[in-house]
């Protein structure tokens, strides 16, 4: 197992190099002109200014040279400088990644608890009114566009009844807690500041719920169908023949087997959300890398796009590895290593 993990870890840099190369080439192939993002419209006819800007950003070099510069910078952890913020992309991302991670973790926790819980009850009482309602709830969660459900909930719960605060991670002019993990909720607790914790949690609640609801939809349906399948398996009959009540058959037997597909879905969902929480971040003005990517794409900020791509890929590869490990743990029939 350890050898397997080591081998997978060694492979990650090579995979990343591939991802970086592809993302670099794609960015070079797009039609848009990054100059437009760098040079104000009215200075475009001034050849001196244009040349100076091109030289500054390496835009006047031939493609292979630009590629070489890009990769060698990358190897030193330098993701380039954002055209838009004029700051190193690595710094931008380091600042924004914890916000995304905090949101995604919270959403995953909510989505998993809700999804597994509803899936369990649905399977236990399948065909009942509850089952029907849970399925509708799951269907809505996974099919409603987030920009819609997010906006509606934001309007209802924040604007109309002021149950939750507005957008962002904290109220305006409130200082974030000292940086330890980058998660405001966790850092506030570490600093022993319960007020700040409550504020951070209140801000996190709605976006995490909206995103978590979407996640729970997928999970509810997966858990429900895996459990119902499990309950009709021979091993479930054996358990009943041993005298197990239905609740035990469901949890000790069907759920144990449902963990195998569940872990896979959780891993992929997590990796997907790192860059896929874009809409949620945009609506709730959440300063994560999703909104960074959107802005980067809109302004042809290649270094920013490339940086987010790399970070997203790292998240994806790591989540994939963790998923495989968890999968092997949940499924003794899988032999890893060899």
């Amino acid at each position, binding site marked *: 197992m350890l050898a397997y993990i080591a081998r997978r870890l060694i492979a990650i840099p090579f995979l990343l190099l591939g991802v970086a190369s592809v993302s670099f080439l794609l960015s070079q192939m797009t039609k848009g002109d990054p100059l437009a993002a760098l040079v104000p419209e009215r200075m475009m006819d001034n050849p001196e200014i244009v040349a100076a800007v091109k030289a500054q950003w390496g835009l006047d070099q031939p493609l292979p040279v630009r590629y070489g510069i890009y990769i060698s910078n990358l190897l030193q952890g330098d993701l380039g400088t954002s055209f838009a913020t004029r700051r190193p992309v690595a710094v931008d991302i380091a600042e924004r990644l914890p916000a995304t991670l905090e949101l995604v973790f919270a959403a995953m926790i909510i989505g998993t608890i809700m999804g597994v819980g509803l899936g369990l009850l649905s399977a236990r009482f399948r065909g009942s009114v509850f089952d029907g309602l849970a399925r509708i709830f799951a269907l809505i969660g996974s099919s409603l566009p987030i920009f819609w459900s997010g906006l509606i909930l934001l309007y209802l719960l924040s604007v109309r009844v002021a149950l939750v605060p507005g957008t962002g991670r904290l109220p305006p002019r409130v200082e974030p807690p000292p940086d330890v993990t980058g998660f405001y909720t966790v850092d506030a607790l570490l600093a022993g500041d319960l007020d700040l914790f409550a504020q951070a949690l209140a801000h996190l609640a709605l976006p995490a719920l909206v995103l978590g609801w979407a996640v729970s939809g997928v999970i509810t349906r997966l858990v429900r169908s895996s459990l119902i399948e499990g309950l009709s398996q*021979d091993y479930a009959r054996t358990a009943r*023949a*041993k*005298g197990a*009540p239905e609740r*035990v058959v469901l949890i000790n*037997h069907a759920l*144990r087997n449902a963990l195998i597909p569940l872990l896979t879905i959780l891993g992929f969902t997590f990796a997907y959300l790192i860059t896929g929480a874009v809409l949620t971040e945009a609506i709730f003005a959440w300063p994560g890398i999703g909104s960074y990517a959107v802005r980067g794409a809109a302004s042809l900020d290649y270094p920013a796009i490339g940086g987010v791509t790399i970070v997203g890929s790292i998240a994806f590869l790591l989540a994939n590895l963790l998923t495989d490990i968890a999968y092997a743990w949940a499924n*003794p*029939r899988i032999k890893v290593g060899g």
Partner: protein
Amino acid sequence: MSAPLLDIADLRVSFRNDRGEEAEALRGVDLTLEPGKVLGVVGESGSGKSVAMMAFLQLLPPTARISGSARFKGEQLVGMSPSKIRRIRGKAVGCIFQDPLSAFNPVITLGDQIIEAIRLHDRSITRRAALKEAERLFELVAIPQPARRVRQHPHEFSGGMRQRAMIAMALANSPDLLIADEPTTALDVTVQAQILDLLGDLRKELGIGLILITHDLGVVAGMADDIAVMYGGRVVETGPTDPIFYETAHPYTAGLIDAVPTLDADGPLRQIEGTPPSIFSRPPGCSFHPRCGRAQAICMTEDPPLRRLGAGRCACHFPVRTPQEAPA
């Protein structure tokens, strides 16, 4: 004669299909088993053998409707509340299923599955003590290195070893009755005999009653005290083992006996022609008549009742009587 361990009378089961049609899978089955004896239940696929067993243990899906009587140690199981019958399942009645690979949970160690079987009926036994018991049971069914094997998962066992583990689990709470539903069908021919011997020896040693379900009369020949032959959801012939073989009365039983492979047989095996009917399209009259060489007009209209005949009982208008001759 002592009071029967299990006394099934007029057991009926019907299933509803998707279109709401109801069909009887069991049409009034009578079976009796004395304590410590072996009853062989024989019949082709679809004759209702499994349904009969699952019915009185209430292990059928909710689409099944069950009526009749099944008394186990005097207690009526039909209509018993779920919580009460759970205390009988796995405790006083152990089950062994056909395919031990699918019958075990693939992601749980065999030891843990046996521990569960024990602790479902007695919470006061610690996990550690239950594991010790699982090891003892593995030893009992001759699984080598029990302390190591209880920590393994089903896929790490060979088919034969897995079925031994299944027997061990069925024996976990010292049952009075074992139900083995085609316990060797999924196994290699070479290990089938070993498993049957083990099952026979253990139940004799422990004084457990056994219902052995099979479609192969040869399997029960050497083991069963009594035999019940099922066809089309009914018992068509039943009685002590020897008369079933040497004074066969029902043409269907005769066909099954002919189909038993023997060492000195030359030529191909003789199978009963045709296939058993589905429960949704059973012929009127005796349901065996379309395949029966002795069928006459009455067989197509009237279902024969199970009547006493010699040492046993038979449901046939024109029973066969093979001459009584003991084998040399």
